[in-house]
């Protein structure tokens, strides 16, 4: 009977459990979880503060999940190192856990630059985990002024989540626009305006240079007073377990399309890994949730002796603030086709007779049809692209392709 060990307990780890169990119902699975919680949906922490969910409903799987999957769950336990010759993982609880195959799904950690005076700030938080969210919530009241450093996905979701709990929110970022990793200037300014209409203030192309108790001195020379500071600048992949034993790492743990690392019998998945991104044709860290699950699942199948490759990962995001949704996917390195009308902006990026990316704001219905065209590299001359620009519909596919999609009859 095989011994499977998974370090980490979020979406990639759950994917890994389900991948293993799709092949091997018997083998022993041990999950080592630093956090003291059963797997919960991490991106829901902003919805938790907003009151749209609660801790109970945030559980990613059912209460009896680990029992049913026959998983030995070690909560509140950190993996310290791997012995690749002896094939064991040492934990901070003193145990050495033997593995036949191991999946490293350790996620990422908020990155905090060494700001001068940061240690004088009493109430400062990251916004990554359930515990982060719960402790942030405790420090907020209707008179709180919040400064969020970082206008990316995490910082802005945090702003939306706490908006109605506090007096005032200012978000600053060194970039000249919000959501700079996924939006171009025009799309970003539409979303920024919407956020401003909902009471969020911005200071862009500017950031905190130093802190003094409850004051932030900005690069531009202005000063911002705050009661609570949220640091959402970025994250770093947790790669040390594999790096320390000489495994190949860049920004993340390098994996192939089977999620194998360079060290035998060790796999990696999720935000800690750097896998193949088919939209650019090379490896990069794709820290998005669907990717984490699918990488984990792929790792699990291969760990259990099955055969699975995951070679069509692309960046894709669906994110909404105060009722306005944005969806983005793929790469923007192509010819741009635009569809614009009141409240709607769609940008499609085309290269080599294929849709390679898109940005949609205001109208996102059935966008998965576009996403599938990118993932499946559907030849653009086989579809009615004029129709697709206006509306996402399978009717734009050729008769043959559409009939195949819907099961043969149509």
């Amino acid at each position, binding site marked *: 009977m095989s011994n499977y060990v998974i370090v980490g307990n979020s979406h990639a780890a759950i*994917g890994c459990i389900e991948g293993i169990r799709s092949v091997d119902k018997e083998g022993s699975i041990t999950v080592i979880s630093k956090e003291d919680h059963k797997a919960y*949906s991490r*991106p*829901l922490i902003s*919805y938790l503060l907003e009151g*749209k*969910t609660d801790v109970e*409903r*945030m*559980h*990613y*799987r059912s209460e009896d999940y680990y029992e049913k999957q026959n998983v030995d769950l070690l909560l509140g336990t950190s993996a310290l190192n791997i012995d690749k010759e002896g094939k064991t993982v040492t934990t901070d609880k003193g145990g050495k856990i033997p593995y036949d195959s191991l999946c490293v799904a350790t996620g990422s950690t908020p990155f905090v630059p060494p700001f001068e005076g940061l240690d004088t700030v009493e109430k400062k938080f990251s916004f990554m985990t359930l515990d982060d969210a719960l402790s942030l919530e405790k420090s907020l009241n209707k008179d709180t002024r919040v400064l969020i450093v970082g206008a990316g996905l995490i910082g802005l979701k945090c702003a939306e989540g706490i908006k109605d709990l506090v007096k005032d929110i200012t978000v600053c970022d060194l970039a000249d626009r919000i959501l700079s990793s996924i939006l171009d200037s025009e799309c970003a300014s539409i979303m920024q305006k919407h956020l401003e209409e909902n009471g969020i203030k911005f200071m862009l192309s500017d950031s905190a240079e130093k802190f003094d108790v409850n004051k932030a001195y900005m690069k531009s020379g202005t000063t911002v007073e705050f009661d609570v500071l949220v640091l959402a600048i970025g994250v770093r992949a947790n790669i040390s377990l594999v790096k320390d034993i000489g495994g190949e790492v860049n920004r993340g743990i390098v994996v192939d399309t089977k999620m194998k690392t360079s060290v035998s019998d060790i796999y990696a998945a999720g935000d800690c890994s750097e896998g193949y991104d088919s939209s650019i044709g090379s490896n990069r860290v794709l820290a998005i*949730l*669907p990717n984490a*699950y*699918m990488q984990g*699942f792929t790792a699990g199948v291969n760990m259990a002796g099955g055969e699975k490759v995951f070679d069509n990962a692309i960046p*894709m*995001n*669906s*994110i*909404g603030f105060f009722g306005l*949704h944005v*969806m983005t*996917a793929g790469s923007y390195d192509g010819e741009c086709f635009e569809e614009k009308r009141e409240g709607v902006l769609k940008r499609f990026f085309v290269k080599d007779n294929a849709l390679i990316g898109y940005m949609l704001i205001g109208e*996102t*219905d*059935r*966008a*998965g*049809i576009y*996403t*599938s065209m990118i993932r*499946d590299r559907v030849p653009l001359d086989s579809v009615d692209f004029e129709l697709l620009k206006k509306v*996402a*519909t*399978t*009717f734009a596919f050729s008769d043959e392709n559409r009939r195949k*999609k*819907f*099961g*043969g*009859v*149509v």
Partner: protein
Amino acid sequence: MKRIYVNEEWCLGCHLCEYNCAFANSGLKDMANALKGKQIYPRIHVEGDDKISYGVSCRHCEDPMCVKSCIAGAISKEDGVVRIDRSKCVGCLTCVLVCPYGALAPSEEGTMQKCELCLKNSCGEPACVLGCPNKAIVYEERD
């Protein structure tokens, strides 16, 4: 596994399936009460033009992207049917981002909904199939 299929040669494009779907999932006993004068949120939608049309609803995929991608763990597949636990859904639309068929859409309340084959509503079997006037929609087993 039985699924819903549409024969586009027989589909009249009448949209009755959309109304029957909305009624079956309304929880109400009277069709006029359920639908009259209201915007409907059906889980099947008719696509096409005046020559070719067909209804699209969830394919209950072998390898469902929506289940794998749901950030809330609200979508699962049991006994071949892809279902949503709407109490867990926060309306992030990630399932819309990934579904290749465009088969998920928000409900009136903003949480997502999709075809669950009417197995758990008062109809008990797909209302779109039962009500299709030209028998263009079928519910059957295929390879």
